[in-house]
């Protein structure tokens, strides 16, 4: 047993103890966050020490859950995700006390902190679980704790509704996963993941159930609708953890089961690839049309999960064809993007929290001009947006580059022409998604941080305290450093898949990714242009107003009008409509008042989930009529049931 795994185990136990401590004794925000941060740091150090080692614990001698004993396993894959978990946990913990201060009377700190510790514990438990029962227990802890955290502001009706939708999603996910586990157990006769291989065709039902459960939790189209409800309602550090880590935990499970379990079922792989592409596109398309900052980020998570799963499915696909080189690049892309998305998405969520903290609103139509009043948050948000838009030299580019590279290499090494065409088409689609991401974040940055403030409260916004600035800055630096150092980060990740029989020697491919050179060159040149060309202080004057007098708030472009051309193109999908109402006596030439109200309906919700929910509701109502409330009727039911049982016993025995 290595030191690293001991550290991880000890910090998990500490978290477990702290769950109960916080329940019993009302915790101080500062102390609780300090403890959480130290658990995060311990995870990071343990994960770093565990790299390239495999530690397996059987705790059969101590306790046992039913018929099987708890087994834990820390390998490089788990360590990689633990690293991400630790980093983000630490940052969120440091950020929390000051942020929670402004929610003081809206949340119950006892439940908040015990759910927070349980949440982190659950995620770590899923990552280090080595058999299905431990996995399910940890998975449930993670899901239920996060559901509790979503409803932190428990008095808000919206939070309650969001938590309900999220709970339905997690229940479905757990249901499918449990079914898959049971089938796998009945086939393999073993709960341990090590003995689970998905290559036989009679395991495909189990594989499809597992995949379904995991992608529901990962928020893949068409199961993504819980994300835009749950993320905005949770407090920002929680949404950062949920979007940054929890969603990745399902991706971790997909990698563990299907990449290392050698899934060979072609329809499932193609299906996953298709769903991944659709969710990348669908997610970003809805992200650009959102009006609330955190909803933008939530939909962008859908997009990024799609991108990661493109990598995962390409990896499984290439592995089946024996193209280990491509599989390695694709998996590296998926892993780097999981890690990177964890960093920049939690950064963006923390920044959104800071905006909420300072301006008391996340509605883009009320924000504006925060870059001048909140410079540090503004820079961090712009850095995070650049990373999520995959701009070099940030880490988003490195991971996306791996995905592109894997797809491009597939397009000339895969044996079937149709496969080659599909991968080439995916390159086109991903570039379109990338351009839309840039548009989305241009809108988010510009409307929230640039221009003039659109409401009095955002005009009065002040920079957040130091303890909130530090995690943001740290995460922004992490994004930059992880991007610049990606040529060195990638080769160890490639070693995760054994075998060297790929057609291309993949390590050398990173020689064509000169990210640190780009970073260096750009820095030098920007400093040159700033220092030598723009060195003179400019003459400050009003923005050009066509001579009509100073520009008001209303003349500024809103987020909705920025996104309108794109929304119009995709109006069949977005159900985007503009209701324009012009009033006034001479309304054609001299309108007194023009009201434009864009409306958008989520197609999936109105056409798929609402009807399905209605049918369910109708059936429940029918069943509900049986519950008349009359004791006499109930007695009759009991009697009839008894008679039925007796007769059934007579005739069927």
């Amino acid at each position, binding site marked *: 047993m290595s030191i690293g795994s001991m550290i991880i185990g000890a910090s998990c136990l500490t978290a477990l103890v702290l769950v109960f401590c916080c329940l019993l004794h009302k915790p101080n925000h500062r102390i609780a966050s300090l403890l959480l941060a130290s658990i995060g740091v311990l995870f990071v150090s343990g994960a770093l020490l565990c790299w390239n080692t495999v530690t397996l614990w059987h705790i059969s001698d101590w306790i046992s859950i039913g018929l099987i004993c708890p087994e834990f396993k820390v390998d490089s894959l788990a360590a990689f995700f633990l690293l991400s978990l630790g980093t983000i946990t630490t940052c969120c913990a440091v950020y929390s006390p000051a942020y929670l201060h402004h929610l003081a009377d809206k949340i119950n700190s006892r439940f908040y902190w015990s759910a927070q510790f349980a949440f982190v514990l659950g995620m770590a438990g899923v990552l280090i679980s080595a058999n299905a029962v431990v996995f399910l227990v940890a998975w449930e802890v993670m899901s239920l704790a996060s559901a509790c955290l979503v409803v932190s502001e428990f008095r808000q009706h919206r939070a309650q509704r969001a938590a309900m939708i999220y709970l339905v999603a997690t229940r479905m996910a757990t249901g499918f996963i449990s079914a898959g586990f049971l089938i796998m157990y009945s086939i393999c006769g073993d709960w341990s993941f090590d003995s689970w291989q998905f290559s036989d065709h009679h395991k495909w039902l189990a594989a499809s159930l597992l995949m379904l459960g995991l992608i529901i939790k990962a928020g893949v189209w068409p199961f993504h609708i819980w994300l835009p409800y749950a993320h905005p309602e949770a407090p920002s550090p929680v949404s950062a953890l949920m979007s940054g880590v929890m969603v990745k935990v399902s991706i971790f499970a997909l990698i563990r089961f299907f990449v290392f379990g050698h899934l060979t079922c072609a329809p499932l792989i193609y299906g996953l690839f298709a769903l991944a592409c659709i969710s990348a596109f669908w997610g970003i398309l809805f992200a650009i049309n959102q009006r609330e900052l955190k909803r933008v980020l939530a939909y962008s998570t859908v997009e990024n999960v799609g991108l990661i799963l493109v990598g995962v499915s390409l990896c499984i696909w290439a592995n089946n064809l024996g193209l280990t080189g491509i599989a390695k690049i694709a998996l590296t892309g998926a892993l780097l993007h999981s890690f990177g998305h964890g960093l920049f998405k939690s950064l963006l969520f923390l920044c959104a929290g800071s905006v909420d903290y300072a301006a008391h609103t996340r509605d883009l139509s009320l924000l504006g001009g925060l870059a001048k009043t909140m410079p540090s948050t503004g820079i961090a948000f712009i850095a995070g947006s650049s990373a999520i838009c995959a701009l070099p030299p940030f880490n988003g580019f490195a991971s996306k580059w791996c995905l592109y590279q894997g797809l491009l290499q597939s397009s*000339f090494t895969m044996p079937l022409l149709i496969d080659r065409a599909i991968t080439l088409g995916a390159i086109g689609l991903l570039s379109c998604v990338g351009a839309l991401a*840039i548009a989305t974040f241009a809108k988010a940055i510009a409307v929230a941080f640039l221009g003039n403030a659109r409401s009095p409260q955002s005009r009065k916004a002040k920079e957040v305290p130091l303890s909130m600035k530090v995690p943001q800055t740290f995460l922004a630096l992490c994004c930059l450093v992880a991007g610049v150092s990606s040529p060195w980060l990638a080769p160890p990740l490639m070693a995760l898949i054994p075998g060297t029989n790929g057609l291309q020697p993949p390590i050398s491919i990173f020689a064509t990714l000169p990210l640190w050179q780009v970073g260096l060159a750009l820095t030098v040149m920007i400093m040159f242009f700033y220092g030598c060309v723009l060195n003179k202080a400019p003459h400050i004057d009003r*923005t050009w*107003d066509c001579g009509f007098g100073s520009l008001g708030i209303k003349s500024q472009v809103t987020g909705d009008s920025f996104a309108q051309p794109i929304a119009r193109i995709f109006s069949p999908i977005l159900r985007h409509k503009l209701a324009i109402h012009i009033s006034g006596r001479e309304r054609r030439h001299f309108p007194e008042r023009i009201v434009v109200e864009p409306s958008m309906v989520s197609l999936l919700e109105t056409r798929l989930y609402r009807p399905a929910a209605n049918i369910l509701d109708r059936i429940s109502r029918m069943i509900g009529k049986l519950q008349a409330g009359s004791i006499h009727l109930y007695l009759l039911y009991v009697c009839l049931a008894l008679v039925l049982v007796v007769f059934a016993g007579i005739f069927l025995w």
Partner: protein
Amino acid sequence: MVNIQNALLWGYLLVSIVIVPGIITGLIRKVKARLQNRIGAPVWQPLLDLIKLFRKEETLSETASWLFRFSSALNLSIAVYLAITSPWISPRPDTGACDLFLFLYLFAAMRLFTMLGAMDTGSPFGPFAASREATLSFMVEPAAILSLASLALVARSSDLTVVFSNYTSQHWALWVLSGSAFLLASLVELSRMPIDDPTTHLELTMVHEAMILEASGKNLALVEFANALKLSILFGISAQCFLHAIPGLMVNASPTIHGIAGLTGLSLVAGSVGIFESLSVKLNWRAAPEFIAYSLAVALIATLAALGADFV
């Protein structure tokens, strides 16, 4: 010997980066002027304009934040970096790899920061233009990436330096198709005719010009230079594509011939763009997707050609 040659090539590259963008912009204007029966300004006029702008005092909007000037400095830095590394003129010194995706994403970075700069001043015109730019870009990006990816597919490398070092013109049809798709995509990317007329000044329809409306003086000089450099790089890449399609022209040719061919090709592309811009009319904004569809269609045919050429 090698060192001297390399030094000469570096010199040629740096001089081209400074001079060619202005000349190419001037050339397009000259062609358009001649076709409109005007004499027009000399081709080096844009260079003189730049020098003039560098000398002028800068006026900054009171609403603008640090991002406004930062974005123009960043954009020019990216443009210069791309001009050094990407194969838009020939011959070139050994500047290392120029990855196709890095190339396109650096342009994307330029676009993001141009849009941000446009929206920083609180003026209504910049954001509208940025919105149009965003709309155009997501439609044109697949065309740009697929035209280059089909070349990369045949060359089996995403490194544009490797892609463009193959002078055998074996797949000349593919080169022509990719070159045309990329040229059409560039016209949209640079928001030139028929998407937008850069010479008119109607703020409600402009794309690029409205985004830089608030820049002035030295700042405007940086922006203009970055844009001219971007134009030269994009046109240069398509010119190189067309040159690669001519059989036997560039194989084993001396650097001088490469240089003459490269510059001639670039000028011809710029000239034909000038002619095209004189003949065409600006499209209605709602008709822009139809034009972009042509570019995407050519790019898709190029990918089919590449898949067919590669798949034996």
